[in-house]
């Protein structure tokens, strides 16, 4: 069965996000003064051939731990959907 895993990687609370801060600054310079906060996130879309949702979830957790994030600074969310 094919599954699509959407992995969103964010910086942990309390970790500085210079890219977000600079984006906020630039948006305000462009006149978007109503923007109150900007945070950067990264998203990976993975197509996975797997037995069932639970196994795929477990695999993706491993992928996050071993490559997609650095647990020192990142948190992640995984969303898995079956592809028809």
């Amino acid at each position, binding site marked *: 069965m094919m599954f699509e895993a959407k992995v969103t990687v964010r910086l*942990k609370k*309390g*970790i*500085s996000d*210079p*890219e977000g*801060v*600079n984006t906020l600054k630039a948006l305000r310079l462009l006149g978007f003064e109503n923007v109150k906060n900007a945070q950067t996130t990264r998203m990976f879309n993975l197509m996975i051939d797997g037995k069932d949702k639970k196994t795929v979830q477990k695999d993706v957790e491993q992928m996050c*731990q*071993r*490559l*997609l994030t*650095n*647990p*020192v*600074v990142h948190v992640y969310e995984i969303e898995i959907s079956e592809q028809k």
Partner: protein
Amino acid sequence: MKTKDINVAILRIEGTNCEQESYDAFKRLGANPEFVHLKQLLHIDCDKNEIRDLSQYQCLMVPGGFSAGDYIRAGAIFAARIKSKLQTPLKNFVEQEYPVLGICNGFQVLTELGLLPGIDTIISPIPDACLNINDSNRYECRPTLLKHENKGKCVFTKNLKKNEIRLIPSAHAEGKLMFPLEKQNEYLKKLENNDQIVFRYVDPDGNYAGYPWNPNGSMSNIAGICNHIGNVFGMMPHPERSFYRYQHPDWTQTGLSPSEGDGQAIFTSVVDYISKRF
């Protein structure tokens, strides 16, 4: 062993770009460096005569650059490829006390690999530290002043005196050393107690002064650390770029001999260590 017999692997993949200076640093001291593509150690896509093993070398160096385009995170892909097959040979290499050096992107690779900070393990399964985006959100490229703070554990700085200040250029966008927020102080204390802090960024008077003297906002102004044994060492600035005095921006004013630059001691120290130890 004799200096000329010291085999140094200068490890590279696509995007490595400081291998020539790194190679030259060891060559100029009379050692025997070799450019080794990671595929040669993984034994994939290479001819029989190109196949290499880590056990053929007495020193491993991961040079600077932008390996694999800095995709995902700086050093993450290079580290993942090393881990795929070389985790055990690498662990053995470090356990046998052969030295491993990571400069700039190489430091990021060693951190992502779990070899650094290496407080009580040789290699941790998931990273214990991170070299995050500079606080300035910019690529910071200029000479930086480093205070040598190691008391003698690090095999790469044995030829430097404690508290000596050296001018070594930095050039990176992700050099902010971080530990898990909730354990920051605990890690720092352990690193200090274990004598694992090697260099800190300082101002010309030798004070910790933050930005711009510390180009990245690194915790406690740390520029370089070693593992608990002292044979794995990573630093963000580039000692291979200040091998000779004439590579310094101010050398004509200093009146010092052009022969030895501030970064040279890193390489002489490790070459001396290997010749005495093995």
